[in-house]
Structures are given as structure tokens and as C-alpha cells.
């Protein structure tokens, strides 16, 4: 638990149109930690995730991936993540790109689909799935790659209470069984309480607070300023 996996040092990211998405962000993730990245819409959470996953390069600053850990990022909109004709093909996409054989990739995919409870839908085209199923499917696509860090961007957006409850159980079960490091970006505070232990508050591209989740949530002024209170 005391081994660092990812560290962001003074990371700044500016979009081509000049919008400053992140400014001097410092963040350290330890192995096995469950972190909630709290922030309102447009605060830079998704950009931060992309930088952590190595998909975007920071304009300034440094990203250290100490153990060369694989970051399994599930995007906010599952439709971005599910682009193959069938669910099975979508889930095998990552393992095949890792160089696994077809048989091994299918095995990993089936296992990931079983974990999220979608193995019976493996031959369905992703556009036929419900929003809740799509969210689970997008998690399965990264689980099949056996990532060390699971990063979920707004996992509860557009979910009904039942699907939300199922997702919470799934995340907790995954972290427990696979000993994953978890980072979730959300503005759904009740959800964060059920899955995370530590929190960073991001507002207008800056980290404005961090600490144990309970401590962060006790700071109403901080939350109010960040547009996260009342929940």
C-alpha cells in the first residue's frame, strides 16, 4: 500500500484552442489505493485521466509511472469504448493487441464478461445493450487486459438506481478480489463514499483539496466552492 504507482508533478495541459484544462496538478497514487477525483463538470477530470493513461502528453510537468503499470481507463461515454460488431470482439480487442493468441484472448474476454455478468450477451452488438450494460461492458474491455490501475470516468452517469447499485458492488468486488488500484472521476458524492477511501478535489483545472474522503467531505466550504455541495 505504501508503494507509489503513479505520480503527476506540476502537470499543466492546454487544449489547442487555448483552454487551460489543468494547471500545476500534483497527485500521487499509491498501490491498492481507492481514490475519488471529485470535481464539477468541466473541471478537467477526464483530461487528467487521459494524461494518467498516457493518451495525452502534458504541456508542462511530468508523469511518473513507477511500476510501468497498465492503466485500464473506462471512458465516460461507453459508446466511445465499444466500437466492434460484437461485445466479445470488443472485449478481445485489448488482449489481442497485447499479443495474446486468439484462444487466450477469448478466454480472458469470457472471464472479464463473467466478472461483470454479461457473458450471455457476448454475441450481441454493443449498440443493442442498455446504458447500464454498456457501462459494465466498457469495464470488461479494460478488465480483460488485467490492468494494475482501474480508472473509471464518471461511471454512474445516466445510470438508474438498480444499475448504480450493481456497479458499486462490482467495483468493490473487483478491488477486493484483484487487489486493484482504483481511481474514479465523479461528482456523485454518495457513490464516491461507497467505493473510495481518499479524495482529490479538482476545480477549474486545479487540485484545491485532498485527503481522506471523510475529511474532504467534512470541508463544506471547499465542496461548495468547487460546486459539489449540497449533494
Amino acid at each position, binding site marked *: 500500500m505504501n508503494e507509489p504507482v503513479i505520480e503527476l508533478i506540476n502537470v499543466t495541459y492546454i487544449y489547442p484552442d487555448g483552454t487551460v484544462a489543468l494547471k500545476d496538478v500534483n497527485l500521487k497514487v499509491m498501490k491498492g489505493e481507492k481514490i475519488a477525483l471529485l470535481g464539477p463538470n468541466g473541471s478537467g477530470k477526464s483530461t487528467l485521466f487521459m494524461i494518467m493513461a498516457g493518451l495525452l502528453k502534458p504541456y508542462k510537468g511530468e508523469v511518473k509511472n513507477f511500476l510501468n503499470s497498465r492503466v*485500464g481507463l473506462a471512458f465516460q461515454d461507453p*459508446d*466511445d469504448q465499444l466500437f466492434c460488431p460484437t461485445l466479445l*470482439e470488443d472485449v478481445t480487442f485489448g488482449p*489481442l*493487441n497485447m499479443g495474446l493468441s486468439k484462444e487466450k*484472448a477469448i478466454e480472458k474476454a469470457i472471464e472479464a464478461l463473467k466478472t461483470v455478468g454479461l457473458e450471455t450477451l457476448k454475441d450481441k452488438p454493443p*449498440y443493442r445493450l442498455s446504458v447500464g450494460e454498456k457501462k459494465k461492458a466498457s469495464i470488461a474491455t479494460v478488465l480483460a*487486459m488485467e490492468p494494475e490501475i482501474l480508472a473509471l470516468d464518471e461511471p454512474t452517469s445516466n445510470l438508474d438506481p438498480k444499475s448504480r447499485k450493481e456497479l458499486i458492488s462490482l467495483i468493490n468486488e473487483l478491488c477486493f478480489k484483484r487487489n486493484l488500484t482504483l481511481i474514479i472521476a465523479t461528482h456523485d458524492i454518495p457513490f464516491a463514499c461507497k467505493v473510495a477511501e481518499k479524495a482529490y478535489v479538482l476545480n477549474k483545472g486545479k487540485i484545491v483539496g485532498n485527503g481522506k474522503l471523510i475529511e474532504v467531505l467534512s470541508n463544506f466550504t471547499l465542496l461548495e466552492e468547487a460546486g459539489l455541495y449540497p449533494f
Partner: protein
Amino acid sequence: MILDFLKIFRETAFTEKHSLSNGLLQKIDSKAKLISFIALILASISFASVYSLIFFLTLNFLLAFASKISFKTFFLRTFFFITFFSTLIAIPTLFMVRGVTLISFNIYSVTLQLTKEGILYALKFILRVWVCISSLTLLTLTTKFSSIINAMESFRIPKVFTMMTSVTYRFLFLFIDEAYRMMLAKENRTVNKMRRIDYMKTLASMMSSLFIRAYERGERVYLAMKNRGYSMETRSLNTVKFQFKDALFIFFFFVFIGFASLIGGY
């Protein structure tokens, strides 16, 4: 009207119910179907007479029947959308091809002559389009899209192309859905009948908005692919199995095409 069109498109274009039913073509391997229908299309556009085109069309309707696709569905799908428009395109050729004049009439100072050769030319054009469209419709209705992609990959069609086709198909559904929702939102805020010019302007702005959304979506999909190890090299699951019955299907299909192509006449 556009809203109705999008609604019909949404409901019909992406249904896979026919590919799941237990008909003749559904039992045939996608590779065999792809070869056979491409051969049929090539035969119809290269050397077929009107009679052989009618034979080809009849074959497609019989195959549709054997594949449990109703005559009405197949006729509407193959004729209404594209063949109807090709008929409109073919009308001028009725009067443009020189030959034996059947009817002649004057419009103002212009004399129009309807010729026998013009009618045959237009008929051939319409039938060719109809055969091509009905062949492709049969292929896509009776085969899962993933199987068509797998078949294309088996024929060593570059993976970049098959990947792009697959992604295009996948997101076409999403954008039709998005366009439909945008049209609904527009209708919801339209109280009086819009002037044609305003309607066109609104449509243009919606199209540009859809284009930007498509572009941004493309960027995000690429990032999602990159996150899962994509490095411009496409790997896929190809589990198609070719059997004796599929070879037999191709054989009979080619015999029929050969026989029908040899029919002389117009």
C-alpha cells in the same frame, strides 16, 4: 419528412432479426455468400441481357423467400429506396437514345421521341440497379455484420479497410440516433410552420453540428483504442468455418449465373 425518414431508417436498417432466422441463406457461410453475390453483381453489370437480368432478379426473390424474408419487406427494401430513384434517373434516357421511334410528341418547340432502344436501355439500367441492390440487401439481411467483416478479412482485404468499415457501421447507428434526437428537439421547439429558407438554415446548422460531433467522437474512439494497445495494426477474431455445403452453394450459384448470362436476346 426527414424525421420520418430517420425513424424508418432507425427501425429498418439495423435490424438483425432476419440474420437470426432459420432460412436457407442464414445457414450458408458468409464467405460463400460474399463470393456468390459479388459474382452476381459483376455478371449483372458486365454482360447481362434484359432476360438474364430478370433471371437474376427472380433468383434473388426466390432466395429471399427461402430465407424467410417476406416478399413485401424485400420488395420495399430493394425497390423503394434506391431503385425508385434510379428509375427517375433513367427517365431522360428514354428520349435520348436513338433508334426506332415508338411515340413522338412536341413540348413547345422541342420534339421528344420515345425509342424502343431508349426503353430497353432504361429497363436494363433499372434492372441492373435492382439486381445489385437486391443482392447486397440479401447478403446484409441474412448475415450478421460481424460475419461479413470476417469474410472480408478472410479474402485478405486490408485490415485497415475492414476495421474502418466495421467502425463506420457501428457509429452510423449512433449518429442516425443522434440526428433523430436532434430532429426531435427541433420539432419540439417549432411552433409555427417554418419558412423553407429557415428550415434549410436549421438543417444546415444541424448537419455541421453533427459533423463536429462525429469528428470529436472519432478522436475519443481513437484514444479508447489506443488505451487498449492499438498501434495501427488490426487484430481480430475470425472464427468463420467453411463447409462442404458452402462449396456446393457457390457451385450452383455460379452454374446459374453462367446459364443465365448465356441467354441471348435484348
